[in-house]
């Protein structure tokens, strides 16, 4: 393997025995049980791995004594997988932990991501609002993918778009988290968004 240092060579005082690939990160978001891990597993070259991530939650209520929002950090499971593009480039897919009732910060996972895919179950649309808000707020390119459970979608894409109130430039597609080709195409939609944002 040729020695390349795509990732911040200044950090490395010593010489690595093997040159690492440049990691490109996509984030898979959405409510609990919406198919994030299934989607990662459908296309990852490794069985999805699980690790713990620290999530800062801002509780919806306000502490009566201090009148400040309660902010707690909890540890949640995070699933991820990867696809080797070539020896110098690797795509990582990180699934955000599903959290529905809290505002929360995923910065620990999302920092540096090139884009996000928000998976939606049309029976529980409100589960994905937090993810949509997050990507919009962070100005991270993203697409919405409606997971067709059992091949069925209960609402049209226009209804989903209206309900989520996403900008016109945000793609809304239907996919099947169990099908590799379908997940691939949904990720490509996100990457095209990222490419457009990069000016490419």
């Amino acid at each position, binding site marked *: 393997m040729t020695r390349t240092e*795509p*990732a*911040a*060579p200044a*950090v*490395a*005082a*010593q*010489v*690595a*025995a*093997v040159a*690492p*690939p*440049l*990691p*490109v*990160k996509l984030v898979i978001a959405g409510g609990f*049980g919406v198919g994030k*891990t*299934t989607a990662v*597993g*459908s*296309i990852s070259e490794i069985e999805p*791995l*699980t*690790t*713990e*991530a*620290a999530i800062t939650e801002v509780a919806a209520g306000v502490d009566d004594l201090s009148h400040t929002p309660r902010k*707690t*950090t*909890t*540890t949640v*499971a*995070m699933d991820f997988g*990867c*696809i080797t*593009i*070539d020896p110098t*480039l690797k795509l*990582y897919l*990180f699934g955000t932990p599903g959290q529905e009732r809290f505002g929360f910060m995923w910065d*620990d996972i999302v*920092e*540096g991501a*090139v884009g996000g895919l928000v998976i939606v179950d049309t029976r529980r649309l409100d589960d994905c609002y937090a993810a949509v808000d997050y990507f919009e707020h962070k100005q991270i390119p993203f697409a919405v993918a409606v997971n067709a459970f059992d091949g069925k979608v209960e609402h049209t894409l226009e209804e989903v778009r209206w309900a989520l109130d996403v900008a016109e430039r945000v793609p809304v597609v239907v996919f099947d988290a*169990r*099908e*590799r080709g379908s997940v*691939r195409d949904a*990720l*490509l939609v996100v*990457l*095209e968004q*990222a*490419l457009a*944002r*990069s000016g*490419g």
Partner: protein
Amino acid sequence: MADGSPPPGDPDPVGPAPAVRPFLVTAGRVAPTASGRPVPVETQVVATAEGLVVLDELDFEQHDIVAACRRPQSVAELAARLRLHLNVVRVLAEDLRAAGYLTVHVPDSGVTHDASVLRRVIEALRAIPDSRGVLRDSD
């Protein structure tokens, strides 16, 4: 969670708890980078020749991390494979880097977001066939 203990009443999301409290092995330190921000989860970590030479003299987690990093690993992969908390891996990786046993490659987001890089990812993804005939239904 400054002290690394799980919140009360919250079940461990990934199975049996390790015997050692997560941050004991890092002497209480977290978020180690010079900039004060934790390195991204996809940051690549690789053993140095020196690290592999001294491998057998390293203890426990340090040994396991350097051994796993014979091949480049992301900090997230290390955490998952060694069943360590992400922030424990971050701290230990920084220690091992400072000792000269690992290199830590923080991705430059200017490079990863570059159009030429994104095009390479897109081309490679397009080449992935529809199915490999194996379905998983876990979530």
